[in-house]
């Protein structure tokens, strides 16, 4: 039996990112093709082929390899929404000092109350925002697989997000970092755009497949 080369080990590590049941059926074949297409002196997987394999594994995990283009676009927008939400969280953490200073400057007679209010806001954001990131990723994953539940959840999620954003905009703007508000608005726009795509006529048949077919897709 041939000894495994460093290149093959590298390819196996990358192929391990694919879903298990897809690997069971295809990994040996993919490894064979990767080794056949490698240059004779290649010792490690190249950057482009590594990214290609990781992108393929991501599409498989999200169920995107079998979804129509409108659903694929919606899922991509949802993933970007998760990134935007993460940006909101980072912005809140980075700018909390300046927001606290702005609140104190605005309410000089209520320094303690203003500081406390900002503190509560930041604590709330630190709890809620990671949950929102996970919620975005869950609806993306579910929609990629054609789950009706995830589709309805995405619509409800986008509606609630619209309501919360309107309420936030009506709040005292001194207590909200402009960058966080911009990132929130971007996340909202991404959510609304994603809903438009999952409601397009081309997307409907994908969600109307029998549960048996969706379960079969989930196996690969």
């Amino acid at each position, binding site marked *: *039996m*041939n000894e495994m080369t460093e290149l093959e080990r590298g390819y196996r590590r990358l192929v391990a990112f694919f879903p298990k049941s*897809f690997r069971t059926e*295809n990994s*040996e*074949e*993919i*490894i*064979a*093709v*990767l*080794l*056949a*297409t490698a240059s004779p002196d290649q010792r490690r997987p190249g950057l*482009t*082929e590594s990214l*290609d*394999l*990781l*992108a*393929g*594994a991501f*599409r*498989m995990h999200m169920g995107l*390899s*079998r979804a129509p283009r409108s659903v694929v676009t919606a899922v991509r927008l949802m993933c970007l929404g998760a990134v935007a939400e993460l940006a909101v969280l980072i912005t809140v953490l980075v700018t909390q000092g300046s927001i606290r200073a702005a609140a104190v400057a605005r309410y000089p007679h209520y320094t303690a109350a203003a500081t406390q209010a900002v503190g509560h806001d930041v604590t709330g954001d630190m709890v809620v925002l990671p949950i929102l990131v996970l919620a975005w990723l869950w609806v993306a994953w579910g929609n990629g697989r054609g789950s009706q539940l995830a589709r309805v959840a995405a619509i409800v999620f986008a509606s609630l997000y619209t309501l919360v954003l309107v309420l936030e905009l009506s709040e005292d703007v001194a207590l909200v970092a402009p960058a966080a508000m911009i990132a929130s608005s971007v996340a909202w726009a991404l959510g609304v755009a994603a809903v438009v795509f999952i409601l397009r006529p081309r997307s409907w048949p994908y969600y109307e497949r029998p549960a048996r077919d969706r379960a079969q*897709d989930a196996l*690969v």
Partner: protein
Amino acid sequence: MHEATFMILTALADGSQHGYGIIGEVAEISGGRVALRAGTLYTALDRLRADGLVDVDREEIVDNRLRRYYRLTPEGGQRLAAEASRLQANAQAALSRLSPGGNPSLGVI
């Protein structure tokens, strides 16, 4: 239809091919312009098999490694023919408008 999907179906149009063979065929058909990578190829094959356009023809073991051959299904052949006709009609429409008779400002192409 994505270009990569069209190319994979075209590569299988005149007979079954294994993964490495498909990559070579696609490079040849496109004159080296499309370089399919393994991740793209196997994600596309997974979708094409799920859609019933491609199926596994046979499997072989060569140098202790699995070699699986894929073939076009009758439905895959019909879809490829329909897409090729559509592309041909579009190309013909574009070329006729670009010809000297179609657009005098362009002269001879």
